[in-house]
């Protein structure tokens, strides 16, 4: 790293006390954690482990339990069941002020009666840090989030982006073993959000800290996180890297929640080596690559991402004039949605179903564009298909 930040030695100076496990070592272990509010089971037996230095995202629709899970990590809610181990110690019942974990709140929760400096120093004073050290640390944090000159301002004299930085500096000042971020960028506009995403990632990498971010914005989770845990109805539906989550969703729900996808229900018909033929109602017989995990005999679904589908006026042929594509579907363009970088076509298949195909607009002049009601051939390879248990 080019620049050396003074005192940025996380492990030695954590205000929370205990030394932090080295990067890559397991830091946080969540075991069978559950939380019920009245009749509503908000978090339903979640187990998860997070490594030191990891940038982890909890992704899910609103009400899926991701915020409740985060609040249990911070200590604002006590789990009804399960254990939360931080560096080997069970903290499930510890109070928030006893945990070496800090949180950045969704609406920042800056203390309106305190200046930027006093907001950042708040946690340090509580930790009993000597005054001189507090001044140094605050100055360091102010520099880190580029807020020089604003130390004496009150929160309501700051812009949204500046407030977000103060909240980040305040949460980082104690050098927590784990930083929780609850929808940290939701209040910012798109451009600012994108630049802040990059800054957060850079900061996390530079400080070597462990971040857990809660978000409902899948693009944000994909951009920033090393791993994503997708939650649905209180359960973790899948924990995977962004790429794996997108290209190899493990369930129909995950496939539909993350990005756009075409789904065709059907049944396994024939096995041919590594290939499987699945008869679908809406798209006829599709040839797919056999998934690594054996699929049962019951109902299956074939999932194909829109950008994996190629469109052409005629089916592709080789020099001998034989059709090369394995899965070809014919239909007419039913809807066109121009998105700038790509265009999404909805194709009404001759077999009855609808197909969504996303085509990159690689040429400026629209010689390749299709028009409404034009007859097209959609084709894709067996490897582009994901087989899901229905």
């Amino acid at each position, binding site marked *: 790293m080019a620049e050396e930040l003074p005192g940025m030695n996380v492990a030695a100076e954590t*205000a929370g006390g205990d030394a932090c496990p080295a990067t890559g070592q397991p830091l946080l272990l969540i075991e069978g954690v559950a939380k019920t509010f009245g009749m509503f089971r908000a978090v339903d037996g979640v187990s998860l482990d997070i490594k030191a230095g990891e940038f982890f995202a909890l992704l899910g629709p609103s009400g899926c339990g991701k915020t409740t899970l985060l609040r249990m990590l*911070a*200590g*604002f809610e006590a789990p009804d069941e399960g254990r939360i181990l931080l560096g080997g110690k069970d903290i499930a019942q510890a*109070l*928030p*002020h006893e945990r070496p*974990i*800090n*949180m950045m*709140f*969704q*609406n920042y*929760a*800056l*203390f*309106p*009666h305190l200046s930027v400096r006093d907001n950042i120093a*708040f*946690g340090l004073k*509580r*930790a009993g840090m000597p005054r001189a050290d507090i001044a140094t640390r605050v100055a360091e944090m102010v520099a880190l989030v580029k807020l020089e000159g604003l130390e004496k301002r*009150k929160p*309501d*004299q700051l812009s949204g982006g500046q407030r977000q930085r103060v909240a980040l500096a*305040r949460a980082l000042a*104690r050098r927590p073993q784990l930083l929780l971020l609850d929808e940290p960028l939701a209040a910012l506009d798109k451009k600012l959000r994108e630049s802040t995403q990059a800054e957060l990632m850079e900061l996390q990498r530079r400080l070597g800290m462990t971040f857990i971010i809660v978000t409902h914005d899948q693009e944000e989770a994909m951009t920033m996180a090393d791993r994503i845990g997708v939650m649905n109805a209180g359960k973790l539906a899948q924990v995977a890297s962004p790429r794996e989550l997108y290209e190899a969703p493990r369930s129909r729900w995950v496939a539909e929640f993350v990005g756009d996808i075409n789904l065709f229900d059907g049944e396994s018909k024939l096995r041919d080596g590594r290939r499987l033929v699945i008869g679908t109602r809406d798209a006829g017989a599709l040839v797919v690559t056999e998934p690594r995990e054996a699929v049962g005999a019951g109902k299956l679904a074939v999932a194909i991402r829109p950008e994996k589908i190629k469109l052409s006026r005629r089916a592709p042929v080789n020099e001998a004039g034989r059709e090369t594509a394995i899965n070809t579907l014919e239909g007419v363009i039913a809807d066109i949605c121009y998105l700038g970088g790509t265009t999404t076509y909805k194709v009404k298949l001759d077999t009855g179903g609808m197909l969504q195909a996303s085509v990159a607009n690689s040429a400026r002049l629209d010689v390749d564009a299709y028009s409404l009601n034009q007859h097209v051939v959609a084709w894709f390879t067996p490897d582009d298909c994901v087989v899901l248990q229905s």
Partner: protein
Amino acid sequence: MSSRRIFAKPARFAAIAPYVWMVLFFLVPFGFVLKISLSQTAIAQPPYEPVFDLTAGWDALKAAFAALSVDNFKLLASDDIYVFAYLRSLTVAVTATALLLLIGYPIAYGMARLPKRWQAVAMVLVIVPFWTSFLIRIYAWINILQHDGLLNQILLALHLVSQPVVWLATDTAMYIGIVYSYLPFMVLPLYATLAKMEPALEEAASDLGAPPWQVFWLVTFPLSLPGVGAGVLLCFIPIVGEFVIPDLLAGSNALMIGQTLWLEFFTNKDWPVASAAAIVLLVVLLVPLLLYERLQKRQLEQGR
């Protein structure tokens, strides 16, 4: 431009209406009281002189002005009775307001932390006593506190005392009455500030390592100061001038300024001294009001 003119008249009237109100119902009566306070008592109708008679001509008016004096204010300053009455009023008001804050804050805090639908119930419970006449409620307290009243019966039944305690005609009874009567005025503004405080602020303080008592003193309390200020003023100012509660519940050896005023006005028929006492009371009460206003202005300026 014509549309603007249509609205100009009512708008201008709306703007001056509060001033008209202030002049009619505050400044004019205040002028009367001020004039009477500068007059001398007389056995006449009205019971003071001089009397301004606008029909008597310019010279009579000049003579009447010349007859005005500040003697009554000198009397107030020189006679212990008045000085002590002011001091007692201030002491009672400060003590009672402090008690109200100590009792009202936990109630308001508890209310603000209740589930939403229970907050409305609690609010009604705080306000419900107001639906009964204030005097009846004070008489009810006389009933409770008297020699063979409910309080003594309970204390005797529990064997906490061996013979009835004298409650009535004591300062304790007066403080009970004042705190009871003014509690809603303390609780409601406090509740209003505490209820609209963002819960995440307390969580943030706790997250940053503050144990519960520090969360309260460093975040909750400072942020509730506007409510504290409003509650304190709403209680302190009327308590300084309080007349009924000390008259009915406290002993007669030490009087508050409200009682003194009443005596001068109705028993001694000394309107000028009573008016002077009222003017001094007003000036005394202006001090905390001006302080509060300056505090609020500073907060507003900091807020900008």
